[in-house]
């Protein structure tokens, strides 16, 4: 039996009207203008908008229809399928192909094309622009399309009978906020769940009559919680069943009468799980109770109540719950944890618990996670991995970082792709891996299953037909842009749709899986354009009889090879290479000075463009990219199948990429030599070829008369330069003004698209990194972009290079708590980009390759600091789960909050401070105002806004600066800093009740108000350079916040009259002394950053030298700890286990601390490693050599190093010890004695050229504990100036040596020493402590 690929069907759709991407907004508003006479269109548009605002839906619809008719007037007579459009959905009837397409992004489809591939004909095109298609479905006799307009709440249904596509009909559904549509299986009815003013309404739409029938009004569902009605429905043959509140109702399909079937003991939640695949079942958890409701037949519902050993929190969509059919097992999973319970009667026993904190193997992105039971086998899988459990026993685990699984339900197989290119098939019936093969593909997507055995799947390199039982690849179609494979309802025709052609295979006899290609369309343009002759006969060949079977015809293979030659001749691989197996292409590229290498794995050529030679960027969704190379900045543009060279003298020094467009940025000094001009150039494709035009210009001029600077910003909506679509913009603003380039361009640049799917574009994004010393801390992410900070880049070579720093990341709907903190990225060859993310205090290492993300988790609940310059780990600190990053204060302290607790960590994480602030409880939004050391929080529930003083020195009791209540706040505009202002000029803006409020950050009082003339103001939630940008009615408005003229009046700055008119013209008033002040401050900060960088590097180096922490050395426990007095310490300890079982322990103290001491420590470490390499452990010789090193190698005069050197021989149970200038070791013996080892002290190393080293030997037996330390501990000074003293130190050790845990012992000693100082956390000298306990037996390696 033939089965349809489930993902190709659009049986259900869901659309949230509130989540319209900005891009769509622009498209809708701006698209019509370039195409028609501006007056008519604009007049129509204005009238339409006016009608919408007045909610005159009839008039609005009529006006919109006029526009649609104008757009529809385009004539598509002589069609060809070029691949220029993007197909979102394709539906194949066996005769006709219905496709929703767009010439923009796939998710912005606005056309329905109906093709007749059998006749090579485009039957009809519906162009709904500016409406966008958000869903399309098919009943047996009708095709139905759902359209939206982003401007208002409501949608439109367009449908027509399949036999007469020219007779479409339309219904406008106004006031609908959200809609789900479900096609019924066998009749011409569409089920609709519409969320409107009355809540959710279930109704049936009948295309034949165009009528709606309301079936049920879900009165009790709280729509504010966005509970999806769809999730509540259980359907069987006779009923639609739905849960409303705690009641299960049945709607009789025949009579539409409602019956109460069952009353649950709890309210339904969107996180409960309904299944009705075999038996109707509901699984729900409430606290520590698990409910399993099943239908035993005839609507006889049984409820089983099971007590869990502790409450489970199932309150997020990332969490999954599942019980097996037998009722023996229950599992709850989250993105990073797994719990399996064994169920027995009414009790549950936790039999397995794992999380990424506890060593689970992988962490699954929440939108890809799936957990279900198959028999007693738990299947837990997602893009990141696959885990199988037999009951609670793990039986299978794949945790490769770049992995994709595809569960083929009909075949009960898992098809697993495991990088690099390895596939395996796991038969779920016996849980055996049936086969493993390596293909050159890098992805998979099952398109169709044929004959319960053959799987047609799409991958990045094309399409393959695979025998799932053997792994034999029956057919491989190279990448010709296969977008769809579909079967007709009768299962006798299969459609293969590509960028370049639509082919239809007819399969008269399924059992033999043989088919003839009976039609192909779409190659005519290619054939006509092709001059090489490679495709000359393709169409003819494709039209000939071919077999889709295991015995592929040679003809087809040849054709496919030819296709490959053509299409593979120029390819984008990964991020920066093109591939070709075409010698001609290779030579052409070589002639342009491009380098090639051959990938031995696939024997194909790669062209690599070195970033340092040019600027390169890749629009993500099209196989094209641009390069500017050479001194003359010759611009190359590659696009399949075209290759263009634009010899333009581009003064390019930067680039930026959107989905399909490429920006080059030009930076240059103006004629005065003082002002720097930034001129982004938009480079994009158009009908006529390449357009290159100004996108945005800025100009800074001096106004000496008024002693001020003026910045002019003139922006042109980017979509003016596109043929048919708008851009989602990346906007980057540079700090500083005038002066040199480094000041003007503080090394930040570039955005690059990551995912390419663009499904979640909400806002444009602004990079706003915070720099502390040489470390960057990022705040948050939205959109689907990775923004990069290129530290160390010069203004003339801005690009993405090794060591670049990613500071913000977005694109995956991981919950908002996800925070990006680090970061390191590189793009050598095709290697992945890597960066690290802190989420909920846990750390995730991400790897990005080809727009996909692999990741691994590191211990949760850690706040981890990593040097962004090197990616090296610096420090970590425990953090309770659930803490959210709030930003930083001016001292560089990192702020985290949880409910009413605010925690401060200093940049080096040496200290933390926790304060309780009641006002912080349950806040929802926050604004850090770094320059003012203020954190503003807004609680959407209580509508309270609180400003907190987060400065380092603030008294906790006075941290709450003000509290105000602002009701009906619609949007919060961040109090971002004004680039050229002093800190006191930072202030937030609220939008409430159609009014913008400018707040005084320091007091919370309203400084100024501005009434917004549009109710739909929004979508650019940023304030840049003192200008608040907003969109409304298709224009972008700006209000200048003139803070130099108290009381800060609002000034209406300008507006865009149409898409062709410059957006706005604004000015920012500056005066000279502020600029000078800023420059001076920046210079100081720069110097400080350089010093910080050096010290930080030394500290990292040293941290790697000292084995801090607990080490299990078999018979011995070793625990070391030290606290430096400065970033680089002079204390040092180490151990070395020799081959013969002896343990060498050394502890030292270089005079002083800081960098010179650290250098000497490093030298000593290196020397000791060399000296002991061969087990040469003669104490006096070693110390003699080390003395010479210290004496000759000290970076400063008069430096020396104390040392205590011990060799522990387990065989003889003896310690040999020499202490020179160093506190004598302490030994606590099993017999209860505790004292110093009687060493005769000597000069420290480095003082005398020749020195006599005294060595003593003493017993060291099981149960004994040895302690070595530096003088920093006993020399801790109390408040009165009295040192703690050696006696106190020794007594503390001897009195506590009975503590079983060595770590606890030395922690206790440290605490005692620090307590003596009076609680201050500053220390004058480094402190180091090492304890070694002889457990039993011999040392082991």
């Amino acid at each position, binding site marked *: 039996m033939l089965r349809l690929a489930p993902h190709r069907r659009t049986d259900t759709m869901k659309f949230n009207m509130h989540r319209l991407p900005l891009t769509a907004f622009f498209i809708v508003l701006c698209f019509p203008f370039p195409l028609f006479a501006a007056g008519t269109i604009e007049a129509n548009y204005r009238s339409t908008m006016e009608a919408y605002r007045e909610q005159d839906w009839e008039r609005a619809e009529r006006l919109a229809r006029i526009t649609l008719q104008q757009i529809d007037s385009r004539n598509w007579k002589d069609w060809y399928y070029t691949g220029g459009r993007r197909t979102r959905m394709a539906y194949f009837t066996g005769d006709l192909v219905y496709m929703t397409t767009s010439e923009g992004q796939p998710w912005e489809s606005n056309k329905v094309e109906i093709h007749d591939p059998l006749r090579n004909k485009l039957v009809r095109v519906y162009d709904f622009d500016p409406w966008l298609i958000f869903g399309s479905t098919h009943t047996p006799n009708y095709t139905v399309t759902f359209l939206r307009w982003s401007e208002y709440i409501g949608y439109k249904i367009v449908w027509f009978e399949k036999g007469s596509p020219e007779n479409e009909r339309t219904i406008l559904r106004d006031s609908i906020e959200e809609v789900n549509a479900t096609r019924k299986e066998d009749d011409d009815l569409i089920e609709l769940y519409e969320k409107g003013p009355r809540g959710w309404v279930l109704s049936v739409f009948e295309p034949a009559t165009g009528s709606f029938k309301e079936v049920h009004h879900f009165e009790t569902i709280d729509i504010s919680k966005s509970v999806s009605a769809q999730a509540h429905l259980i359907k069987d043959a006779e009923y639609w069943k739905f849960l409303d509140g705690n009641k299960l109702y049945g709607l009789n399909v025949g009579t539409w009468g409602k019956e109460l079937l069952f009353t649950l003991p709890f309210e339904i939640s969107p996180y409960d799980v309904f299944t009705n695949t075999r038996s109707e079942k509901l699984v729900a958890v409430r606290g520590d109770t698990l409910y399993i409701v099943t239908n035993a037949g005839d609507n006889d519902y049984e409820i089983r109540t099971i007590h869990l050993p502790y409450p489970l929190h199932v309150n997020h969509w990332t969490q999954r719950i599942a019980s097996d059919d037998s009722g023996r097992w229950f599992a709850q999973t989250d993105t990073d944890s797994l719990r399996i319970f064994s169920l027995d009667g009414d009790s549950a026993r936790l039999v397995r618990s794992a999380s990424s904190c506890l060593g689970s193997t992988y962490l699954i992105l929440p939108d890809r996670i799936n957990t279900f039971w198959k028999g007693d086998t738990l299947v837990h899988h997602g893009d990141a991995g696959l885990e199988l459990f037999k009951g609670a026993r793990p039986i299978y685990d794949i945790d490769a970082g770049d992995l994709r699984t595809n569960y083929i339900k009909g075949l009960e197989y898992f098809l697993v792709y495991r990088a690099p290119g390895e596939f395996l098939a796991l038969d779920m019936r016996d849980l055996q891996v049936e086969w493993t093969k390596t293909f050159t593909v890098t992805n998979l997507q099952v398109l169709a299953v044929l004959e319960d055995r053959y799987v047609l799947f799409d991958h990045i390199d094309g399409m393959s037909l695979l025998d799932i039982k053997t792994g034999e690849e029956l057919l491989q179609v190279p990448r010709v842009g296969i977008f769809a494979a579909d079967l007709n309802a009768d299962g006798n025709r299969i459609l293969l749709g590509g960028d370049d052609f639509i082919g239809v295979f007819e399969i008269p006899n399924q059992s033999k899986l043989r088919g003839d290609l009976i039609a192909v369309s779409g190659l005519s343009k290619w054939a006509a354009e092709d001059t090489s002759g490679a495709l000359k006969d393709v169409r003819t060949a494709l039209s000939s009889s071919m077999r889709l079977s295991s015995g592929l015809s040679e003809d087809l293979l040849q054709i496919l090879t030819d296709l490959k030659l053509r299409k593979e001749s120029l390819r984008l691989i990964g991020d920066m290479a093109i591939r070709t197996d075409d010698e001609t292409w290779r030579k052409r590229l070589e002639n342009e000075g491009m380098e090639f290498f051959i990938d031995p794995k696939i024997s194909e050529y790669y062209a690599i463009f070195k970033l340092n030679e040019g600027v390169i960027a890749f629009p993500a969704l099209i196989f094209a990219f641009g390069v500017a190379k050479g001194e003359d900045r010759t611009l190359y543009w590659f696009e399949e199948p075209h290759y263009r060279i634009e010899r333009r003298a581009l003064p390019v020094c930067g680039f930026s990429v959107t989905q399909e467009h490429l920006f080059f940025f030009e930076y240059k000094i103006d004629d005065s030599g003082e002002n720097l001009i930034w001129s982004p150039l938009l480079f994009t494709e158009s009908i006529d070829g390449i357009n290159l035009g100004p996108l945005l210009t800025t100009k800074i001029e001096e106004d000496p008369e008024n002693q001020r600077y003026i910045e002019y910003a003139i922006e042109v909506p980017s979509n003016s330069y596109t043929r048919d679509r708008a851009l989602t913009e990346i906007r980057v603003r540079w700090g500083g003004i005038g002066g040199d380039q480094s000041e003007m361009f503080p090394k930040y640049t570039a955005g690059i698209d990551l995912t390419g799917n663009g499904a979640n574009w909400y806002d444009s994004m602004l990079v706003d990194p915070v720099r502390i010393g040489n470390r960057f801390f990022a705040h948050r992410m939205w959109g689907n972009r990775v923004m990069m900070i290129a530290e160390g880049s010069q203004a003339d070579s801005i690009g993405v290079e090794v060591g670049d720093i990613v500071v913000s990341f977005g694109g995956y709907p991981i919950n908002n708590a996800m925070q990006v903190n680090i970061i390191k990225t590189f793009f050598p060859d095709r290697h992945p980009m890597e960066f690290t993310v802190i989420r909920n205090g846990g750390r995730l290492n991400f790897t990005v390759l080809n727009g996909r993300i692999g990741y691994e988790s590191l211990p949760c609940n850690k706040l981890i600091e990593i040097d962004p310059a090197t990616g090296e780990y610096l420090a970590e600190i425990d953090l309770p789960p659930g803490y959210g990053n709030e930003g930083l204060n001016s001292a560089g302290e990192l702020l985290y909050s949880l409910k009413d607790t605010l925690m401060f960590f200093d940049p080096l994480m040496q200290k933390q401070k926790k304060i309780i602030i009641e006002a912080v409880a349950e806040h929802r939004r926050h604004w850090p105002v770094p320059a003012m050391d203020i954190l503003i929080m807004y609680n959407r529930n209580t509508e309270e806004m609180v400003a907190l003083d987060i400065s380092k020195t603030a008294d906790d009791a006075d941290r709450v600066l003000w509290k105000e209540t602002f009701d009906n706040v619609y949007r919060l505009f961040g109090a971002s800093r004004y680039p050229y202002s002093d800190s006191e000029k930072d202030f937030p803006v609220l939008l409430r009740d159609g009014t913008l409020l400018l707040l005084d950050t320091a007091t919370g009082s309203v400084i100024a108000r501005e009434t917004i003339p549009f109710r739909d103001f929004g979508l650019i939630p940023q304030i840049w350079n003192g200008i608040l940008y907003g969109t409304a009615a298709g224009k972008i408005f700006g209000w200048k916040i003139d803070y130099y003229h108290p009381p800060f009046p609002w000034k209406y700055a300008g507006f865009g009259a149409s898409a062709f008119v410059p957006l706005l013209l604004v000015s920012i008033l500056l005066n000279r002394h502020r600029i000078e002040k800023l420059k001076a401050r920046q210079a100081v900060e720069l110097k400080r950053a350089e010093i910080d960088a050096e010290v930080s590097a030394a500290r990292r180096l040293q941290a790697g030298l000292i084995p801090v922490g607990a080490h299990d050395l078999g018979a011995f426990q070793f625990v070391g700890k030290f606290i430096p007095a400065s970033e680089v310490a002079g204390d040092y300890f180490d151990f070395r286990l020799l081959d013969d079982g002896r343990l060498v322990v050394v502890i030292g103290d270089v005079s002083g601390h800081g960098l010179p001491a650290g250098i000497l420590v490093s030298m000593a470490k290196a020397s000791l490693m060399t000296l002991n390499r061969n087990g040469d452990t003669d104490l006096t010789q070693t110390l003699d050599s080390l003395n010479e090193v210290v004496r000759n190698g000290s970076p400063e005069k008069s*430096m020396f190093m104390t040392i205590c050197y011990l060799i522990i021989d387990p065989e003889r149970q003896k310690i040999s010890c020499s202490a020179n200038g160093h506190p004598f070791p302490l030994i606590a013996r099993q017999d209860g004695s505790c004292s110093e080892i009687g060493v005769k002290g*000597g000069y*420290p190393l480095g003082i005398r050229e020749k020195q006599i080293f005294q060595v003593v030997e003493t017993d060291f037996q099981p149960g004994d504990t040895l302690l070595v330390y530096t003088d920093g501990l006993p020399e801790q000074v109390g408040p009165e100036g009295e040192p703690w003293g050696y006696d106190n130190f020794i007594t503390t050790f001897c009195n506590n040596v009975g503590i079983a845990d060595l770590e606890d012992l030395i922690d206790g000693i440290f605490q005692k020493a620090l307590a003596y100082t009076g609680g201050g956390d500053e220390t004058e000298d480094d402190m180091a402590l090492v304890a070694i306990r002889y457990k039993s037996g011999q040392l082991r390696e």
Partner: protein
Amino acid sequence: MLDSFTVDTRREGPVWVFSTHGYINNVGGETIAKRFEEAHADGGSKYLFDLGDSKIINSIGVSFLIEILERILETNGTMAFCNCAPIIEKTFKIMGIMQYATIYPTVKEALAGMREAV
């Protein structure tokens, strides 16, 4: 509390007496070394360091004293300490200074002992 350091210098017959006040760290050590050099240049071979008003010494402070001790030993001179806090005495013992210098309980005893020394 540890912010000022001073040294009083006087001559008691053949013995130069340095009375320190405060934490003997890098600042204290440098001050002592400077005063020692002045005395050394003025002639003398017996040096007594009265540490009664110094409660603590750190490693850099010790390094200065060792340097002074080495200078004194080069010229066959004598170095002694008195009024040492226990922790300082312990430090001197650890650092091996006790092998070359003597510690007296008081100035008086030190002067008596040093006068007798050859």
